[in-house]
C-alpha cells in the first residue's frame, strides 16, 4: 500500500530536478553543521494558576535532546510530559506560565549564533513564531482533529512552508508534494487536493507528519502520536518516524506512556512522574537495569504475552475492593439444565449500513457497507471471550448487535438464560426488556459515558430505578455495595463524574453495569483510554469480579496483549469477517490466518530483546481479504467456511481439502 522509503529517493530525485537549487538545498538536505546539543532543558518549572491556588505541573525537569536522537519522555497522565511539550512550543494554555528554568535551543542552521532560550520568549513574539513550525515542529495525537475539515491537505501541509520559507507558490506546492511522497503517499499530487476526511486514519497520520516536517525542522515533538492507532498502523508510523529521522537528520522528542513504543524506537529515555524526572539514560540502561522503583513498577504493570495463566499484573498502586451480599447471589441454574452449554451463540450475523456516497454535487447512489459478514462464535459460560481487530473491522458493531442497540440484518444471537434459549435478534423492544438486565455494557470513554449532570449515586442507581429493583432503602444499599465492589469509597457517591480520574470513572461505569446482576458483560475497549498503571488496576479488578460474581465477559479491544491477559478464547476480526478463533495460547503462539500472523509482529513489546522487525512489516496489505494467499482468499464469488485446525481452533478458509493443508 505504501511506497517503501528507498523508492522515495527516486521520487525526490524526480521532483528535485524541477526545483530551484536554492530552495532545494536548505529544505531537503540535512544541515551540515552539527551541534553537540539541540535542546538543553534545565530546571524547568511550569505553574498552572487555577481556582484557589497554584498547581506545579512541572517541578524540575532537566534533560537534553541531542541531534539525530529519538528521546522518549515517558510518564502517565498528569506527570507533566505534555506540558513540557507545550512549553517548548510556546503553546501553553493561558493559565500556565514558565516559572523558572531555561530551555536552550541550539539551532544547527545557525551554529555560529548563541543558543536561544525558549523560556524567555513570549509565545506570540515574532522570534518564537519564527522557531515554532519552522525549527521545532509538533506531531499531535489525533490527526482527524488536527486538520481543519474545510481545507485541503495540500493547503494545510504547505502552510508552514509559505509562512517560514521564501518560496513561490509553485515551489512550495512541489516541495509539499515531495514531502507527502516521503511520508508514504503513493499519489501525492492527488492527495494535495483531498480533504482530511477523505483519507484513511493511517494516511491522515502520515499527512500530519508531513505537515510537521515540511519546513525541515531540527526537532520534532511527537505527542502521543501513535497512541490512538491500531497496532499495524502504529508499527508503520513508528517505522516512518525512524526512517525519516535517519533520512532528514531529525531529532525527535517522543512523548508517550507506551513503554512498548519506547523500547522499539527510542535512543534515550526520560521517565517523569508527578512533575519530577525519575530516571533518564539510554534505552538500554533504562530497560536492562531500571533503578527507580516507579519505573520498575511501570514495567510490571504492562501485560506481556508470555505470562502464566494465573499470573497477575502488578499495578503501581493496588485497589482494594469488597463484594457485599446484595450484589452477589445470582438466580441459580435449574438442576435439569446443562451448566456447560454456551452462554451466547452468535450465528451468521450480518449487518450492513447504507450510506449515500455523493459524487460531486450529484444526488449520489446508495452504497452498502458490510460492517459485519457471516460472523459466528460462541461464548462459554464463565469465560472471557476476546474480540480483536483494527478500527473498522466490525467488532464494535458486533457488540452493539448483541446489546441490540443495533438490529442485525440477518443471523441469530442466542442467549442462554438458564437453559431457555432466546434469540435476541428476533425480540422486539418490549420483549428485550427482561434481557437488558442480563447483558450489560461498559464503554470506552469513561467520561462521555457518564452524564456530567448526575451524581455518581444517581448514575449507578439509574438501572435499578428503570428495572424497578427494590425500594429506596435497598437501592441505596446496593449502590453502596457496588461502589465497594469496584474499590471506591461510598462517601464519594454525592460527587459528580468530573471529580474522578479516568480510571475511577471507568470503575464507576463498571459498577453501573453490575447493578442489575447481569450474566454477561460486554466491554468495548474498556482500558484503551487509560494509562498503563491504571489499566493494570482495572484489568485485575475485572478478573477478580469475574471470579467472584460468576460473570461471563465479551471483551473487545485492539490491544492484543490486553486481550491475551484477560481472555480465554479469542476471535480475530478483519473487514467485518471473523477470520480466526482459538484459545488465547493457540492464537498467539500458533496463528494460522495470514491476517493474525501479520498482527503479531506489529505489536511493540516493552522488551529490548524483542524489538519490532520493521523490515518485515506487512504494510497493511494483510487487511485486504483479496490479498490473502490461498486458501484464505476471499472474493465475491467464494464462500469461505470455518475450518478446524486444532482443538477449538478455527480459521476462515475456502474449502475442506485445502483447509486440511493448514493443519500442522
Amino acid at each position, binding site marked *: 500500500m505504501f511506497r517503501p522509503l528507498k523508492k522515495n529517493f527516486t521520487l525526490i530525485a524526480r521532483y528535485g530536478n524541477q526545483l530551484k537549487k536554492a530552495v532545494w538545498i536548505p529544505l531537503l538536505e540535512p544541515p551540515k553543521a552539527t551541534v553537540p546539543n539541540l535542546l538543553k532543558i534545565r530546571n524547568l518549572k511550569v505553574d498552572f494558576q487555577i481556582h484557589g491556588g497554584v498547581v506545579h505541573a512541572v517541578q524540575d525537569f532537566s534533560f537534553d535532546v541531542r541531534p539525530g536522537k529519538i528521546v522518549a519522555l515517558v510518564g502517565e497522565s498528569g506527570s507533566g510530559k505534555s506540558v513540557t511539550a507545550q512549553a517548548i512550543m510556546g503553546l501553553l494554555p493561558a493559565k500556565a506560565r514558565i516559572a523558572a528554568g531555561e530551555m536552550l535551543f541550539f539551532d544547527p542552521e545557525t551554529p555560529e549564533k548563541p543558543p536561544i532560550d525558549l523560556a524567555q520568549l513570549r509565545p506570540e513574539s515574532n522570534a518564537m*513564531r519564527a522557531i515554532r513550525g519552522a525549527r521545532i515542529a509538533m506531531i*499531535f495525537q489525533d490527526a482527524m482533529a488536527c486538520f481543519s475539515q474545510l481545507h485541503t491537505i495540500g493547503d494545510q501541509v504547505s502552510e508552514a512552508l509559505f509562512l517560514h520559507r521564501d518560496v513561490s507558490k509553485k515551489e512550495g506546492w512541489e516541495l509539499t508534494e515531495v514531502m507527502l511522497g516521503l511520508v508514504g503517499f503513493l499519489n501525492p499530487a492527488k492527495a494535495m487536493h483531498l480533504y482530511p476526511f477523505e483519507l484513511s486514519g493511517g494516511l491522515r497520520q502520515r499527512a500530519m507528519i508531513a505537515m510537521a516536517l515540511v519546513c525541515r525542522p531540527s526537532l520534532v515533538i511527537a505527542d502521543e502520536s501513535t497512541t490512538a492507532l491500531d497496532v499495524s498502523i502504529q508499527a508503520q508510523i513508528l517505522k516512518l518516524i525512524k526512517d525519516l529521522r535517519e533520512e532528514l537528520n531529525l531529532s525527535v522528542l517522543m512523548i508517550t506512556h507506551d513503554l512498548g513504543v519506547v523500547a522499539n524506537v527510542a535512543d534515550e529515555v526520560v521517565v517523569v512522574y508527578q512533575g519530577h524526572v525519575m530516571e533518564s539514560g539510554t534505552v538500554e540502561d533504562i530497560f536492562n537495569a531500571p533503578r527507580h522503583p516507579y519505573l520498575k513498577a511501570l514495567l510490571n504493570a504492562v501485560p506481556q504475552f508470555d505470562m502464566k495463566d494465573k499470573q497477575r499484573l502488578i499495578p503501581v498502586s493496588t485497589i482494594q475492593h469488597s463484594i457485599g451480599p446484595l450484589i452477589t447471589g445470582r438466580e441459580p441454574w435449574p438442576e435439569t439444565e446443562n451448566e456447560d452449554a454456551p452462554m451466547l451463540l452468535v450465528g451468521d450475523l450480518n449487518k450492513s449500513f447504507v450510506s449515500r456516497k455523493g459524487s460531486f454535487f*450529484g444526488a449520489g447512489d446508495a452504497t452498502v457497507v458490510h460492517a459485519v459478514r457471516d460472523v459466528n462464535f460462541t461464548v462459554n459460560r464463565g469465560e472471557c471471550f476476546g474480540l480483536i481487530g483494527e478500527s473498522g473491522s466490525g467488532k464494535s458493531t458486533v457488540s452493539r448487535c448483541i446489546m441490540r442497540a443495533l438490529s442485525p440484518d440477518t443471523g441469530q444471537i442466542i442467549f442462554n438464560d438458564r437453559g431457555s434459549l432466546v434469540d435476541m435478534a428476533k425480540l422486539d423492544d418490549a420483549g428485550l426488556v427482561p434481557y437488558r438486565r442480563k447483558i450489560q455494557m461498559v464503554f470506552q470513554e469513561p467520561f462521555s459515558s457518564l452524564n456530567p449532570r448526575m451524581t455518581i449515586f444517581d448514575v449507578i442507581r439509574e438501572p435499578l430505578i428503570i428495572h424497578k429493583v427494590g425500594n429506596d432503602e435497598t437501592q441505596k444499599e446496593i449502590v453502596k455495595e457496588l461502589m465497594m465492589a469496584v474499590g471506591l469509597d461510598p462517601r464519594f457517591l454525592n460527587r459528580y463524574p468530573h471529580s474522578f480520574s479516568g480510571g475511577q470513572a471507568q470503575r464507576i461505569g463498571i459498577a453501573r453495569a453490575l447493578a442489575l446482576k447481569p450474566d454477561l458483560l460486554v466491554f468495548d475497549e474498556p482500558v484503551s483510554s487509560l494509562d498503563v498503571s491504571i489499566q493494570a488496576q482495572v484489568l485485575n479488578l475485572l478478573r477478580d469480579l469475574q471470579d467472584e460474581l460468576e460473570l461471563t465477559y465479551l471483551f473487545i479491544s485492539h490491544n492484543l496483549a490486553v486481550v491475551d491477559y484477560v481472555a480465554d478464547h479469542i476471535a480475530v476480526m478483519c473487514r467485518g469477517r471473523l477470520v480466526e478463533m482459538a484459545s488465547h495460547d493457540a492464537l498467539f503462539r500458533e496463528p494460522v490466518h495470514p491476517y493474525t500472523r501479520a498482527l503479531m509482529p506489529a505489536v511493540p513489546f516493552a522488551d529490548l530483546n524483542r524489538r519490532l522487525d520493521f523490515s518485515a512489516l506487512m504494510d497493511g496489505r494483510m487487511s485486504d481479504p483479496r490479498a490473502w494467499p490461498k486458501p484464505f482468499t476471499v472474493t465475491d464469488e467464494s464462500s469461505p467456511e470455518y475450518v478446524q485446525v486444532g482443538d477449538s481452533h478455527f480459521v476462515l478458509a475456502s474449502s475442506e481439502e485445502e483447509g486440511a493443508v493448514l493443519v500442522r
Partner: protein
Amino acid sequence: MFRYIIRRVLLMIPTLLAISLLVFTIIELPPGDYIESYIAQLEAQGEAANPELLDFLREQYGFDKPAYERYFNWVVGMVQGDFGFSFEYHLPVSEVVGDRLFLTILISVATIIFTWLIAFPIAIYSATHQYSWGDHGLTLLGLLGLATPNFLLALILLYFANVVFGTSIGGLMDPEYLNQPWSVDKAISVLEHLWVPVVVVGTAGTAGLIRRLRANLLDELQKHYVVAARAKGLPQGRLLVKYPLRVAINFLVSDIGHILPHIISGSELVAIVLSLPTTGPILISALQSQDMYLAGSFLMFLSTLTVVGVLISDLALTALDPRIRLERGAES
C-alpha cells in the same frame, strides 16, 4: 452541480403549491369576504351600499364561485404574472406592491450588511477576549439592544435625526420627492432617511448574531486544529481568519434562508411607526380588510423568498463545505 440545482428548483414547485394552499385557506378562514367588510365599512360611515354595484363586484371577482375555483384562478394567475386586483386600492396587486418592493429589499439588504458589519468585529473581539471587561461590556450592550423594543428605539432615533440632522420625520425620503421619478437628489434623500430603520431593525438582529457567533467561535477556538495551526507558527490574526472564522461563516450562510423573511416581516411594526413606504404596512391593512388577493400575493411573496433563501444557503453551503459536497467519499 447542475443536476443538483435542477432537482432543488423542481422541488420548490410542490413546496410553493403547498404553501399557496395554506395561504389561501388561512385567508378564507374568517367569515365573510371583502364585499361584506366593505358594506360594513360603508354602513359605519352612514352610507348605503348600492346593491347592483355589490353584485357586479361579486361577479367580477368571482366571490360567487366555489372556493377551489377561486384558488385555481389565483394560482394560475400568479404563474402568469397576474397577482390579482386589490379591492382596497382599486389597482392591480403588482402595482400596489411593486413600488414598495424595491424599498423593502433595499432596507432589508442594508440591514443585513449593517448587522454583519457590527456583529462580526464584536463577536471576534468577545470570543478572543473571553470574560474580559470588553467582552462583558459588549455583551451587556448587545443584550440591551436585544431587549429594547424596536418601536421605542425608532421613535428616539427619529427625534434625534430630526433635531440633529434636520431629517424630516417619517418616510424614506423628503416629502417633495414622493411620486417623483428617481433622481440623484431623491437617492440622496433616501440614503439620509435609510439609516434610522436600518439601525432600528438591525440592533435586535445584531445582538442575537453576536451571541451566536461568539459561541460558535469559542467552540472552534478550543479545537485541536487551532492548536495545530498555532504550532505551525501562524500569527493569531491570520489563524483566526483562516480557520475558526471560515467555519463560522458556514453557520452564517445556513442562516440566510431565515434572515430574509425575518427581517422583512419583522420590520413591519417599525415600518408603521416610521411610516415607511415598504410592504409591511400594506400587508397588515390588507389582512384587516380581507383584501384577499393583496394579502395572499404578499404572503406568497414572503414564502417564495424563504424558499429561495433556503435554496441559496444550501447551495452556498454545498460550495463552501467539502464535508457536504463530498459526503463520505472516503478513500481507504
